[in-house]
């Protein structure tokens, strides 16, 4: 983004990317942009005449990420650097940025490679540990939902699909960043032992990593919007959701800026930031769960629901005590209708899973066959009235059946024997296919 005299860029970095950020800032100065400030990856530049400026991007592990701006330790450190001829530019968390236009006479800020490695390693560690915790949480959630052996609920719910994608997205980001850190740490350690010059990531490497991460963010935002617009039945609900998210982000930024300006005691500051972040995340998740989930069915969905739940106990000549219990879920990938109809002696319950994607159908079929393997599930001959492209499986002494067509799976259980299974299947086919 750039206006007349100001330019704002997004450039995500970790403390161990210091050399890459230096190179980036020097390139910008050569193009006539002077760094003004950095706020969470957003770099603000001012237009100047093109010139050669030497930057040092330094980290101070002593400064906590929860500290207010211009903490005593940081100010003291700056005085040391200024005494050595460096001009202080700005700070961002643990990062302190200095520059000079005369790099020949000036002494470097760090003259001991090992001390610098220790500082940079210590400062990066907190960020990497956070990434690791997030990555493990994602793996745990992905494992317990996608690889649980029961994906029917997941595939039929847009909310769970969005959540799953968010987890995969965080996992990819985490893996990219953790790998990058490990490669750097091992290489740098190795070089320090050999007393050689320490390699820090250069601008090109950081740019590749940033393109990958920003690509992930864009893909996620795009799919999130696409799925939300597609599945939210009420458009105003969606607009409200977007409005509330933007509003919360603005409030969050305002709270942060107030905290930064007022010098509160260290621990209080830490607690306020952690608590407000948790409250913010909980609030957003609560909103997504309650607003994005469609709670009003459209005419189209209503007809699918009626069609897929049309088989009732009365079709077999039994009286119904109360109306059947019907649950309907729909996502961009599939729809699922669950129906259970019972009277005092008999029950009929079934799930109709429908999807136009063959891979989704494949997963569902395999999962069901695996799940009922212990109950002796086996394929049976076709009834005369059912076309041969529908596969029929049964288990539990012909009380339960699974009918699989190209785009529909019907998983049905009955508690009554009096109707022969052939006759029962004919009815199921006639009503549900």
């Amino acid at each position, binding site marked *: 983004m750039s206006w007349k005299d100001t330019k704002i860029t997004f450039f995500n970095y970790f403390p161990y990317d210091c050399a890459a950020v230096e190179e980036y800032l020097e390139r910008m100065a050569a193009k006539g942009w002077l760094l003004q400030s950095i706020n969470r990856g957003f770099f603000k530049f001012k237009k100047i005449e093109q010139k050669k400026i030497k930057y040092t991007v*330094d980290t101070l592990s*002593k400064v906590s990420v929860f500290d207010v701006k211009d903490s*005593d330790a940081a*100010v*003291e*450190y700056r*005085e*040391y*650097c200024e*005494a*050595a001829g*460096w001009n202080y530019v700005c700070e961002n968390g643990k990062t302190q940025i200095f520059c000079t236009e005369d790099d020949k006479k000036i*002494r*470097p*800020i*760090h*003259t*001991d490679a090992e*001390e*610098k490695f*220790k*500082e940079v390693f210590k400062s990066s560690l907190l960020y990497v540990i956070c990434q690791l915790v997030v990555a493990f949480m994602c793996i745990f959630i992905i494992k317990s939902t996608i690889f649980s052996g029961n994906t029917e609920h997941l595939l039929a719910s847009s909310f769970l699909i969005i959540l799953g994608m968010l987890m995969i997205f965080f996992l990819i980001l985490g893996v990219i960043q953790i790998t990058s850190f490990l490669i750097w740490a091992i290489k740098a350690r190795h070089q320090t032992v050999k007393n050689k010059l320490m390699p820090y990531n250069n601008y090109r490497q950081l740019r590749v990593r940033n393109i990958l991460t920003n690509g992930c963010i864009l893909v996620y935002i795009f799919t999130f919007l696409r799925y939300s617009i597609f599945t939210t039945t009420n458009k105003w609900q969606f607009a409200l959701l977007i409005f509330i998210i933007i509003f919360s982000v603005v409030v969050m930024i305002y709270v942060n800026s107030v905290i930064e300006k007022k010098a509160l005691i260290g621990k209080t500051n830490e607690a306020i930031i952690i608590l407000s972040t948790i409250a913010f995340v909980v609030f957003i998740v609560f909103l997504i769960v309650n607003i994005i989930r469609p709670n009003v069915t459209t005419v189209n969905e209503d007809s699918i629901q009626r069609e897929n739940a049309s088989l009732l106990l009365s079709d077999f000549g039994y009286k119904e005590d109360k109306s059947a219990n019907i649950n309907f879920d729909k996502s961009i990938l599939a729809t699922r209708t669950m129906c259970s109809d019972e009277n005092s002696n008999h029950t009929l319950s079934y799930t109709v899973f429908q999807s136009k994607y063959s891979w989704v159908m494949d997963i569902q079929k395999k999962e069901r066959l695996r799940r009922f393997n212990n109950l002796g599930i086996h394929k049976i001959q076709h009834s005369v009235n059912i076309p041969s492209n529908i596969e029929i499986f049964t288990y539990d002494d012909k009380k339960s059946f699974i009918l699989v067509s190209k785009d529909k799976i019907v998983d049905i259980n009955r508690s009554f024997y009096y109707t022969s299974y052939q006759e029962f299947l004919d009815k199921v086919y006639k009503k549900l296919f």
Partner: protein
Amino acid sequence: MAREQFQNLTEPMYYILMSLLEERCGVDIMEAVDKISKGRVNVGPGTLYALLGKFEKESMIRETEVQGRKRSYIITDKGKEILLEEYKRLISLVEDGKKYMGERL
């Protein structure tokens, strides 16, 4: 632990400790190191700041005066002992070298 970490002082450590035989503030230390080593050893402000923190933690130096944000330090007895040990080690290195290399070079 501290003893092990500072068993062999690096050049910057050696010169910083030497300069603190007199009370000095951070900026003065950089200049003093330059002067003592006749410009051969260069201690950057980042390195100096990190090392002063370590020395203070290990009670090898202590803070004497705080004027605004300007802190002054001086070496402690423990620091002197470590510095002296290093000095003796270096002397013995030189003497061994003199004896063994002198005849062969």
